[in-house]
């Protein structure tokens, strides 16, 4: 696709731009949090840690949603072969989203005064539940927003009898997005029951519903980028979604180990979350196969880089790191520590954030009319900065978490200011270091996408500048991809053994060597393998341009003969 076919697709632009702005502020709050971790008195009383963190988690959810809405609005007309229904409602949705973001950012600050705005037994202004910090007013507005999205998308889609798997995926996705949200809209007296329902929203939303939208969008972007056939992508989308639910429906029980629910959840949650990586492995192969379906040069490298980053970080962050800490025997140690942070950051930003950015990099040049000649260097650089930064953050959190498990759980020292935080000091300093790399990437990314097609055109590399198809640029075959994947899982197994070793009698007796050693091998090994693999994958794709350039100088007759 080289130009916009349906004018209403352009409505997605504002959501992509909003996504970028919110992303910038979310990363900024993240940096502030790292500083507060190092100096807990920083801004204490002015902007307490819990308020800054609520902004960080909420903006994270809101920008991902904004990216989803943008991507759905962009592909909706293409999937339906007609303009979006009710464009006026979409404009309203945008302003409602703006208003609810501003309102939510402001109301979170009330937590410092202990003001939740209790009315009719409900916290109207803010409610202090992790990820769902927004008050009831925010919740209702977001619910209405989701309902509008459902209405627009379902009205735009063709008749149900003409739906393929991508229609079903997106259709079910947006409806479930709306329905599951309702479980977060009640004040629950019992802590165990409240946590039970909070994970409906957090787990079923993220790992069930977002994942469905993710798989569908990835599938359709592959169709758009590589001309993969709708039928085979549809097959992958159906089974991807099926495996997400076959593992994730009962896999949600990994959140019910220690919240006061009975012990049988420890078994069900462990077993089925052991299966949760399966859909991710499935999706991984699906993107590999489709990307290698044709040998044509890849037109938009940043868009594909973010798409690949999304699927690979999903594999590493959600799949492998999630797997390592999902068993009752490992989770009993990792639960409530920084170990979980490495998983959360890689999985949430990686899977969903990068998908929104991929969609934006695909769609914005089209909407700005610069698809043929846009300077991709800034986008590629920004990708590598945020990708490396995020892997580094995952590493810092995991190492800090391992130390925290030992000091806090094994030794039982619970003085955070005196015992725990000083022991984690090295990791606490690594976080802002990688955070800065990430933040520079974010700034470049936001600048690039905001001004793409508007700033003066730079000279653009011809295809001759593409890497040679030898060495790291040679063709990536399936067996090599399999080896990379295997290496990642071997490091994942080492991490799992390290966490399991906290159950050993000797470790509980105060000997920390084994778990530290396993973490010291496993985490850097996994994250470096990931970095190198993505480098290898992208280089082999970019090298296609080189081949194409070489072909272009062949005599026309010869080229026709070889075609």
């Amino acid at each position, binding site marked *: 696709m080289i130009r916009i076919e349906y004018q209403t697709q352009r409505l997605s632009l504002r959501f992509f731009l909003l996504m970028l702005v919110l992303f910038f502020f979310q990363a900024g709050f993240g940096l502030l949090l790292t500083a507060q971790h190092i100096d807990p008195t920083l801004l204490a009383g002015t902007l307490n840690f819990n308020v800054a963190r609520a902004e960080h988690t909420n903006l994270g959810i809101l920008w991902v949603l904004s990216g989803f809405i943008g991507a759905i609005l962009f592909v909706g007309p293409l999937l339906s072969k007609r303009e979006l229904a009710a464009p006026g409602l979409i404009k309203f949705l945008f302003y409602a989203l703006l208003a609810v973001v501003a309102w939510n950012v402001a109301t979170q600050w009330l937590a410092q005064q202990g003001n939740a705005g209790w009315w009719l037994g409900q916290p109207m202004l803010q409610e202090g539940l992790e990820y769902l910090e927004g008050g009831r007013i925010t919740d209702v507005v977001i619910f209405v927003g989701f309902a509008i999205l459902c209405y627009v998308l379902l009205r735009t889609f063709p008749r149900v009898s003409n739906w393929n798997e991508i229609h079903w995926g997106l259709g079910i996705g947006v409806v479930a997005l709306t329905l599951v949200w309702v479980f977060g809209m009640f004040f629950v007296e019992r802590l165990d029951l409240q946590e039970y329902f909070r994970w409906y929203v957090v787990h079923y939303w993220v790992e069930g519903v977002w994942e469905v939208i993710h798989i569908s969008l990835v599938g359709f972007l592959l169709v758009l980028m590589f001309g993969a*056939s709708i039928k*085979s992508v549809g*097959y*992958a989308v159906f*089974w991807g979604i*099926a*495996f997400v639910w*076959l*593992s994730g429906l*009962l896999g949600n029980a990994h959140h019910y*180990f220690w919240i006061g629910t*009975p*012990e*049988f959840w*420890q*078994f*069900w949650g*462990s*077993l*089925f979350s*052991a*299966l949760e990586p*399966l859909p991710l*492995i*499935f999706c991984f*192969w*699906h993107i590999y*196969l489709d990307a290698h*379906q*044709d040998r044509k040069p890849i037109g938009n490298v940043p868009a594909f880089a973010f798409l690949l980053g999304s699927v690979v970080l999903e594999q590493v962050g959600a799949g492998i790191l999630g797997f390592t800490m999902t*068993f*009752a*025997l490992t*989770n*009993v140690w990792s639960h409530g520590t920084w170990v979980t942070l490495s998983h959360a950051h890689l999985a949430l930003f990686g899977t969903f954030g990068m998908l929104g950015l991929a969609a934006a990099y695909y769609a914005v040049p089209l909407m700005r009319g610069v698809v043929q000649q846009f300077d991709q260097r800034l986008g590629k650089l920004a990708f590598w900065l945020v990708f490396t930064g995020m892997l580094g953050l995952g590493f810092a959190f995991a190492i800090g978490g391992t130390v925290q498990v030992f000091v806090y759980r094994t030794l039982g020292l619970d003085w955070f200011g005196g015992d725990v935080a000083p022991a984690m000091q090295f990791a606490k300093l690594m976080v802002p270091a990688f955070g800065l790399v990430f933040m520079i990437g974010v700034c470049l990314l936001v600048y690039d996408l905001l001004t793409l097609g508007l700033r003066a055109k730079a000279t653009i590399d011809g295809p001759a500048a593409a890497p040679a198809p030898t060495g790291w640029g040679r063709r990536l075959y*399936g067996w090599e991809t399999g080896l990379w994947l295997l290496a990642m899982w071997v490091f994942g197994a080492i991490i*799992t053994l390290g966490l399991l070793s906290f159950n050993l009698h000797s470790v509980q007796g105060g000997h920390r060597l084994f778990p530290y050693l396993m973490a010291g091998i496993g985490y850097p090994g996994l994250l470096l393998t990931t970095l190198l693999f993505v480098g290898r994958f992208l280089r082999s794709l970019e090298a296609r341009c080189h081949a194409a350039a070489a072909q272009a100088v062949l005599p026309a007759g010869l080229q026709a003969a070889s*075609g």
Partner: protein
Amino acid sequence: MSAQRIVRLGLAIVASAVSLALSSPYWRDFGYWPESRRLWTLYFVLGFLLAVYVFDAFLGRLRTLFEHDALERATREDEP
């Protein structure tokens, strides 16, 4: 049953057995009736069977994914 089918099922059983072994609960006190020994046995059996199904279906579908790819590649090469 074809050999391929048997290998797939065998792999699924081994994978499920490993998952089951890793899923050993950290804590069991058999205090509440749904946590009685009899029901624990039921959970293990039911969980194992479901896991075998999911692994088996996964391996089968992954195979088809590659078959589709080979097939499409072949049709692409047939075309001029």
